[in-house]
Structure formats: C-alpha cells, structure tokens
C-alpha cells in the first residue's frame, strides 16, 4: 500500500467510527424511542428547521440562526481578539524582562488559577447584561493562557540566538520581529489553543446566566421547555462549531509553524 492510499484509508477510518457510532445511535433510538436520546435524524432535521432553512440570500440561515449563532460567534471572536491583542505583546514584554516577570510571576500564577466561571456574576454586575459583558468576560478569561504561555515562550528564547542577533548588531526592532516573535510563536499557539476551547466554555456560561440571545441561551430555553431535540441540536451545533474552530486554528498553526515541526524532528 503506497503512501497516498495509506493516508486516505486513515482519513476514512477516522470518520468511520463516527459514522458507525451515529448509525448505532440511530438504530437504538428508533427502537427505544427514548425521550432523552432522540435519533440523529430527528436532531439533524431539527437543526435544519431551526437554523438552516432560511432564505438563500442569508446563506440559508434563519432569523434564529442570525439572531443567536452569529452573535455568539461574534462575541467569541471579539473576546479572543482582545485577549490576543493585549496578551501577546504584553506576554513578550514581560517575558523578555527577567525583573518584570519575577515581580509578576506569583500574581499571574494565581490569577490563572481562579476559575473564570466563578466570576461571571461579577462581570454581570460590572457590565450589566448584554454583549459588552460577554465580550469582556471572554476576554478576561482567555487572556491568561495566552499571557502565561507567551511569557514562557519569550523567556525561553535560545540565548545563542540572542547572541547571534547581538553579534550581527540587529536593531531592537529587528531583534523583535526576526527573532523574539518567531521564537515565541510555538508556545503562543499552545496558549491560543487552550484559550480557544476556554472561549467556548465561557461563552456558554455567560449565556446560560446572563443573556437574551446566543447558543447557550437557546439550549437553556429548550431545556426549560423540555424540548429535548432542540437541546441536542444546540449541543451538536456546539460540537460542530468547536470542531470547525479548532480545525481552523490547527490549519493556521500548521502553516505558520511549519518550520517548527521540521526543526524539531531533527533534534528529537
């Protein structure tokens, strides 16, 4: 079996288990008619009906979709965007200064371990219910992994690489763009991956407690009305979105850090 067929087989195999599992669920649900575990066909139909049966001009999205899914995603994007925009430069600045990171280490360590979920009401009080609150909440929660990991990455730039930059008399700006930032990228992305999953969690938490729209709100609503299929629809949607976002991030990382994989293979 050559390399191409091997890769395709593996790719098919990955989806095979998922497909088999879904099929098994379908069969079981049709047989048992459980109220709590509707068949995947019903869930799929409900998802289509709720969100994807809209007019073509809106990409087939229904008002429920545009009114709930899009705002949720937008808030996640905004929150994460703020976290990256603040956390990455700050992380590099702190990481490059042994003194500053010495002063801030215990604070960051502690700040990171306070569960953000415990602070959701604080944010509601501070910002009142609404978009602002959710974005701020997500930004606050997701900045920690990015910050801590970026600091670590900036701190552990190979000293020989720094000496090389000194010897060839690169300016501070060149050192930053050609050395520090690329060298910090791997650990930054590790932090970003954690923050991405965390952002979805915080989005749901914020919407379960203090929101009038959003995916979390939909799930909660459906649960209160005992609409099991809708609850499942929301959960499946979260899974798909999470999968898609993670895959997108991995794709970006794959491209940006291609050199890292190559170099590490040599040293391992």
């Amino acid at each position, binding site marked *: 079996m050559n390399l191409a067929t091997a890769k395709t087989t593996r790719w098919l195999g990955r989806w095979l*288990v998922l497909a088999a599992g879904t099929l098994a669920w379908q069969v079981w649900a049709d047989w048992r008619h459980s109220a709590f575990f509707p068949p995947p066909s019903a869930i799929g139909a409900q998802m289509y009906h709720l969100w994807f049966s809209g007019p073509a001009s809106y990409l087939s999205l229904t008002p429920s979709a545009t009114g709930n899914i899009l705002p949720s995603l937008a808030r996640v994007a905004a929150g994460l965007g703020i976290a990256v925009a603040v956390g990455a430069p700050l992380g590099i600045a702190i990481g490059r200064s042994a003194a500053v990171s010495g002063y*801030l280490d215990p604070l960051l*360590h502690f700040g990171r371990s306070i569960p953000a*979920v*415990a602070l959701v*009401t604080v944010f509601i009080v501070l910002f009142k219910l609404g978009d602002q609150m959710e974005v701020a909440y997500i930004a606050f929660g997701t900045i920690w992994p990015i910050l801590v990991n970026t600091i670590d990455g900036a701190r552990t730039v190979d000293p020989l690489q720094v000496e090389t930059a000194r010897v060839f008399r690169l300016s501070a700006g060149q050192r930053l763009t050609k050395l520090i930032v690329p060298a910090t990228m791997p650990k930054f992305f590790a932090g970003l991956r954690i923050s991405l*999953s965390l952002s979805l969690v915080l989005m*749901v938490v914020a919407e379960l*407690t203090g929101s009038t729209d959003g995916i979390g709100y939909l799930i909660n609503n459906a649960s209160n009305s005992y609409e099991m299929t809708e609850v*499942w629809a929301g959960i499946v949607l979260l899974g798909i979105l999470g999968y898609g976002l993670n895959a997108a991030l991995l794709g970006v990382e794959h491209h940006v850090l291609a050199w890292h994989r190559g170099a590490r293979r040599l040293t391992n």
Partner: protein
Amino acid sequence: MTEYHRARALPWVRGLIGVAAFLLIAEVLSVTGVINRSALPPISTVLGQAVLLLGNAQFLGDLAATVEAWMAGLAITVAVGVPAGLVLGSVPGVRSATRAVVEFLRPIPPVALIPLVALVVGPGLRMNLTLVVYAAIWPVLFNTIYGLDDVDPVAKDTLRAFGFGRSDVIRRVCLPAAAPFIATGIRVASSIALIVSIATGILTGRIDGNGIGAFISDANTAGSINPALAAALWAGILGLALNALLLWAERRVLPWHHAYLEESEAAQ
C-alpha cells in the same frame, strides 16, 4: 548571606514585592474612586471577607463538599480513563480511528450539557460527577495513549532480547515509561474536575448539592458580591493546593522522571 543564597532568594523577594505592589495599587484605585466601589469592592474588603469565610460553617461545609466531589470525580476518571487508555493505546490505529469522534466531543463545553444531563440523570451529585468525568477523562485518556506511544522501542527490544514475555514488557517498560505522562494527564484532569464541579454548582445552585459553586450561587442570588468574590478567591487557592498535592504525590511515586516533567509541561 552568600551570593548563592542571595540569587536563590531573589525570585521570592521579587514575587512578594509584586504581590504587595498589586494589592497596594488595587486598594488605592478603589479608595480614590477610580474603580466604582459599588461594582467592584476594594481588595481589602474582599480579602477581609475571605478570611471571614474561614469561620463560616456553611462555607467550610461547602469547601469540604467540593473537595469530596473532586476526589470522587477524579477517582472515577482515573479508574475509567487509564485502563481505557491502556487498552486503546495498545491497539494500533485506534488513535486515528477515534480522532473524529473525539474532535467533536471535546470542544463541547461540559457546562452546555448541564441542561441535558440534569434532565437525564437528575440533579445532584450524580449530575455533577457525570459532567466532571465527561470533561476530565480526555487528558487522562490521551496522555495514557500518548505515553504508551512514546515508549522507546529500543527499551522494549532489549527486554525481549533477554527473553521476557509480552506482559513483562508492558509491566516493566511500558507502564514505567508512560507513567509520567499519565501523571501529568491526571493533574490536568484534576484542575478540569475542580472547575467543572464548581461551575456546575454555580449554574444549578443548591439543588445540585453542596459545594463552593452552590455557595457562590447563593451569594449571587442574594446579590452579595463580596462573599462571591471571596469564595472565588478560595476556589483559586484550592486549585493551587490540590495541584501542589498531586505534584507532591507524583514526586513520591515517580521520583525519577524530572526530565519527562519538563517535556510534558511544555506540551501542555
């Protein structure tokens, strides 16, 4: 004090200065009104409240309940996750086959499942544990599989060349080699377990049972932000303490794996 002692003490001193400076600045900002006192109480109040909570019987009971739930959840997670990981890890191709399923399930925030699990399993400790195990099992499962993957084939071959059978190889080479990874997975699972347990408590309130989450939920309903913040503070400290506890246990059981520790920490 010698140069050596001075160098060792420096990070501690810097850290303490950092914490002190932060507390001072936060207090000043609050007192001068830069931070709205009605929205966010001054840090001295929060710290004072935190100390007061230690004398609060309800809180102490909740603290104990959370630790109990954490222990139970982590125990179940390890009891299910490690053997499952060992079995799956020894079967070639399992990793790639189950990738799709895992990539869909992982991103679903456990808190999003609260409505579903509450309806299926009923509120209370059972729901809490279900969610905890669901959320915490992934790192244990993965690190076990990854740990087995990483066993040095030369080590295995060496043992086989001396006439040891397959079970011996697993016992004497694979498990000890995989142990550090499994240990790291358990530590990650531990923090997830704590956070999910508390989050569930916050979102479902006291019907879910006792715990720090329930305490915070009560404080939220009563509108008293001080105890909520103080409890969140204690949640952070609890997380650090439990992590330190596991680290200590890890060092006792696996004293030889410091080098591995650096590698797997970097991978987190």
